[in-house]
């Protein structure tokens, strides 16, 4: 069953169309990757799916309902976003930040109850941040903070999770750990995942389907085998690459070829 439908979405910040006639559907429990070069409209598309930006033409349907007609706090009950690392000026504790994920369920006034503390504890357990629950968020390393933001998204108990280059600043171990965790939630809990990423190999490894954006237009959408091809990547990224099969997984693998490689 489709959970997100994008119907002929067109969006502009004022001059040219940043997104032009974007139509696709995402099924419940799907893991979709959005790839494309800088400025191709990936982050804008994520913001439109979350209702932070409203398209000038076309519409986004969540569970069949137009996102324009859904209240902000009801969207937040369904969709969680894990952003890139964002600085927080006042020193909230890790637990306080994760607890913010309960906000859409609690409204403006209600204090957190036992179930909320239990949900937050679980989210921190899964992301392995329980040991520093009472530390200030500003004392943590980049990788630890990113896990806090994931825990906050989990505490929202969403049906859909949007990842906006969430692992851009993580080292390779934490990148894989992060995607393993998301994949497990995707498989076991039926969480729908949409991730924007620059790492095509990571997308190939984890995504059921990949959407390739070029200048605000869908260049291709389909399984990694269908979309991550040498001709597609060369054409869209204008980069010299070789695409072959990963000998372990059999999935498409992108290798950069430099014009002046080191000897």
């Amino acid at each position, binding site marked *: 069953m489709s959970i997100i439908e994008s119907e002929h979405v067109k969006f502009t910040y004022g001059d040219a169309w940043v997104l032009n006639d974007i139509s696709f559907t995402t099924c419940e429990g799907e893991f979709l990757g959005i790839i494309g070069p800088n400025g191709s409209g990936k982050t804008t598309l994520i913001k439109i799916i979350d209702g*932070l930006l409203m398209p000038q033409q076309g519409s986004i349907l969540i569970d069949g309902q137009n996102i324009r007609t859904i209240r902000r*706090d*009801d969207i937040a009950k369904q969709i969680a976003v894990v952003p890139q690392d964002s600085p927080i000026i*006042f020193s909230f*504790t890790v637990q*306080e930040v994760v607890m913010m994920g309960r*906000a859409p369920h609690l409204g*403006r006034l209600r204090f957190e109850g036992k179930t909320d*503390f239990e949900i937050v504890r679980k989210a921190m357990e899964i992301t392995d941040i329980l040991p520093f629950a009472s530390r*200030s968020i500003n004392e943590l390393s980049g990788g630890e903070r990113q896990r806090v933001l994931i825990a906050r998204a989990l505490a929202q108990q969403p049906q859909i999770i949007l990842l906006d280059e969430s692992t851009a600043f993580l080292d390779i171990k934490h990148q894989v750990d992060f995607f393993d965790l998301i994949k497990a939630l995707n498989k076991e809990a039926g969480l729908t995942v949409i991730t924007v990423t620059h790492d095509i190999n990571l997308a190939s490894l984890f995504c059921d389907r990949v959407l390739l954006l070029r200048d605000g237009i869908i260049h291709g959408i389909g399984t990694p085998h269908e979309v991550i091809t040498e001709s597609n990547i060369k054409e869209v990224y204008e980069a010299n690459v070789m695409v072959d099969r990963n000998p372990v997984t059999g999935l498409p693998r992108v290798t950069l070829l430099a014009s002046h490689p080191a000897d």
Partner: protein
Amino acid sequence: MEKLPVTMSRVIKINLLFVAAFVAVAVVSILVGPAKIGFLQGLKGLLYGWHEGYTGITPSEKTIIFSIRLPRVIFAGLVGASLSAAGVIFQALLRNPLADPYILGISGGSAVGAIIGIIIGLGSIPFGIPGLAFLGAVVTVVLVFVIGRSDKELHSNTMLLTGVIINAFFSAIIMFLISISRNTDLHTITFWLMGDLSLATWVKIIFVSILLVCGFILIYSYARPLNLIVTGEETAMQLGVDVEKTKIILFLAGSLVTGLAVSFSGIIGFVGLIIPHIMRMLFGPDHRLLLPASFLFGATFLVVADTIARTVVPHSELPVGVITAMCGAPYFIYLLRRRTV
């Protein structure tokens, strides 16, 4: 320091302690002053003196306690609470720990209104000077909103810069007005500019406290959205907050609370900057605890400062803003140093 989670019982407990501290400080403040009243005698007078037949204190002592010092202490508390709560809001909305209630230029606008009122002799009319000062505050808020709002959005940085410019512009007008004013008005103007709590009356207190309590309840009902906005406006939206609506309501509430306090008491500096910082260091940044704690501690602080202001120099009285700045500035530098080291 171990950081405890903010729960309703913790919020209530801490704030009951603050209420007790305020009452204790207020009682001591009432019994202190140039006219000496014995401690026990004064305490009894405070408890029973409002009975017609009570004879433990003389009629003049009764006047001093109930018509001069008690209203003044309550008024100082109201103003301190307003400025501190407004400081918390502006620091959170502008995501700038150096923001204070006057940052949008409200103090400048009020001052222009008040000085005009003093010069044209509105002092004898009830609510004349504060009324004009409040009008100045409202005009300023409207200006900042009109200039700071574009694309149907409030831009924090634009508002902040607008406030700075408006304050600079009003300073020029204030200088101009002072330079053309009569010598007899200068003392009044100076006291107003430095903060003056001596003009408290019961009518003013009732008026200000009703509006302030309503404003504070409205502000407190947005404590959780404020927590989320502090972590970033986009994050707050992703977590379900209607950010634009929340910002408009809180900017207006904070501005009006500030305008109200300034109009009746003049420009008392540093309270709204420093109290939120001290409370945040003690209790963390959660506004469900931070707002009421700042409100109550701000009240206590200004009562202490005002007590010092009216007793430290014999046969004379200092503007309370002198005391708050003298205590506030060095303490703030100490805080800044302690954070970085």
